[in-house]
């Protein structure tokens, strides 16, 4: 009986961490529509105090949403940039967060592919931010797949981005791990183009239990307790997750299957075309990122053809803890150890470009 009470109390404590912290009162919501008919959720955080530079658009990764960039007042890249005089915007790609869900009656059908993210969602968000803010071009931060969207967009001549930072964004995932064999074998059988995997429901369902076990699978895969408190992770998983489009997962499977970073039809080789990118890019990697292993992030850095910088977050470079994949955006010290170098990079490239 005592055990049951204990478990109940632990779960109750876990649930307490799951409360959704509302957006700040002055956050402004927008819903621009893509050319193919999807309304996207964008949130604007006006600069606090004097404006110090261009607006910054922040984009989440796969199975995630806009709350990745503004979890609460202590874990918010958006509010941090705003506090430094940079107007910040968060976005949710189609079928995630508060953006439109599939609705065949309104022409919003599955499959959704990664190509739609960079061909429609990202350009729509960029144009909207430019229009509302009046900026000729904006800066961009993409976490994981968000950074891959920037790579694809820029590699195909996309405009409007002045400087970019990618955080834990891989361009290939074939590194000979045992996990890859599993994905190669089962991935194509399990992943179907025409489904939306209920990863949001799954995350919410498991969230109360996620701090019960030390060194559990989520901890191993996604975050490092040296950098993110389990309670933060628990809240994050509850509000920052979204359903996963099967078509997106299927397209990105090629990163594992063949190492290619390419369009769904295979005709566009993003990695090869990244040599054409002239936009300055800061590539940030976490030493213990077990989703986007450092070689996979470095691969993207090497492919870039323009001004670029590599930043490896690790204790050997002065960080106070090692980082995993999600620590780059929700880590307790991310403002000092990640956001600050990103802002410095953007500031450094604020001067008019000569090319």
């Amino acid at each position, binding site marked *: 009986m005592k055990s049951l009470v204990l478990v109940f109390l632990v779960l109750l404590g876990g649930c307490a961490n799951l409360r959704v912290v509302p957006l700040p009162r002055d956050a402004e919501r927008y819903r621009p529509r893509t050319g193919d008919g999807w309304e996207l959720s964008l949130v604007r955080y006006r600069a606090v105090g004097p404006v110090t530079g261009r607006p910054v658009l922040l984009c989440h990764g796969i199975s995630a949403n806009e709350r990745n960039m503004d979890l609460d007042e202590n874990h918010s890249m958006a509010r941090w940039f705003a506090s430094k005089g940079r107007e910040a915007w968060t976005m949710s790609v189609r079928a995630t967060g508060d953006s439109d869900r599939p609705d065949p009656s309104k022409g919003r059908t599955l499959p959704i592919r990664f190509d739609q993210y960079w061909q429609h969602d990202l350009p729509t968000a960029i144009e909207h931010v430019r229009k509302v803010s009046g900026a000729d071009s904006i800066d961009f931060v993409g976490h994981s797949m968000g950074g891959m969207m920037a790579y694809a967009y820029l590699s195909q001549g996309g405009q409007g981005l002045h400087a970019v930072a990618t955080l834990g964004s891989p361009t290939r995932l074939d*590194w*000979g*791990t*045992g*996990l890859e064999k599993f994905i190669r074998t089962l991935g194509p059988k399990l992943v179907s183009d025409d489904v939306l995997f209920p990863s949001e429901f799954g995350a919410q369902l498991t969230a109360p239990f996620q701090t019960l076990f030390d060194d559990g*699978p989520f901890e*191993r*895969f996604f975050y490092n307790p040296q950098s993110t408190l389990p309670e933060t992770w628990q809240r994050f998983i509850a509000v920052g997750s979204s359903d996963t489009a099967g078509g997106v997962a299927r397209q990105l499977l090629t990163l594992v299957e063949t190492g290619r970073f390419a369009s769904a039809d295979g005709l566009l080789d993003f990695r090869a075309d990244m040599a054409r990118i002239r936009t300055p890019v800061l590539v940030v*990697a976490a*030493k*213990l990122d*077990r989703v986007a*292993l*450092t*070689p996979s*992030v*470095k*691969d993207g850095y*090497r492919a870039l053809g323009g001004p670029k910088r*590599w930043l*490896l977050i*690790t*204790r*050997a*470079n*002065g960080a106070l803890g*090692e980082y995993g994949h999600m620590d780059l955006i929700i880590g307790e010290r991310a403002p000092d150890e990640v956001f600050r170098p990103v802002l410095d990079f953007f500031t450094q490239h604020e001067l008019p470009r000569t090319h």
Partner: protein
Amino acid sequence: VIAFLSLIIAVVPEFTVSYRRVETRDHVALALYRYQRPGGTSERPPVLLIPELGFSRAAYDFEGRGLARWLAARGLTVYVAELRGQGKSGPGLSLEAFGADLRDVLDALKVETIDLVVHGWAGSVVLASNAAEPRIRRVVALNTPLFAEPPSVLAEAFLEDGGRFSSLAGSPQGAQIFELLFSMFSKFPRGTDRGFLSTGTRDLSRPVAAQLLAWMRQGDLPLGNDSVVARLTDWTKPTLLLAGLADGFASPEQCAVWRELAHGSVRLRTFSRVETQEDFSHLSMLLGTHAPGIVFPLVYDFFGEEP
């Protein structure tokens, strides 16, 4: 009878470990150790193990544990060579001379073919210096970089200080630096990592530390008329490259790219704790708790593959 058999088992050594001295063309004494199981060996070629710069034979055989004995227990004849600047060998003052030592070791062994295990930066130099060596049959490269990257803040400080492992062994702060560079996020049998720092390492010479630092900063090491990158780009020997995510001294992003440039001869295997019990650091790849269960079988199986 049981007592008698127990006595026999206790008295008869599991291996014979023999030592010999090899003199190089320029008269530097190298230490060469042979591990052999009594009562015959496999028909496979012998295996030669080369430690990392600043490491000694202990990287492959520390307090009776390690890859040397593990392979020998499976019937292979195993050699560990301490090249100049390592372990009990003579002083090493340049990486070029370090890389050239392999030829003298192979001459002394008088073998037609040999399989090679190399580790870290020493591996890059040895392989690049001997890319055309016909006696090398297959290679396992552990955390072996192709493209050097600018060093981390700690690695830079360590090498600017002359690569003095002895200075790390004497203080908790030094031990922490050693951990972050060589044994981060790793599990070891009790006392192994600290013990190895104390007894398994040797200070780099100032010139070698400076050369290694310049290599990291510039991205390549000149060798004769070309460089490490040029020679390893044309690498043709069948090679298994193992890269540990937690390696702070020769990070996996410096190693993994070798596969892309080696025209199919390099097979890559990386580790992360999602899949295995260990991310593997520079040292735990060899002496970590999980190395015998995860890393060593890969080495043995690779050498046993048919061409």
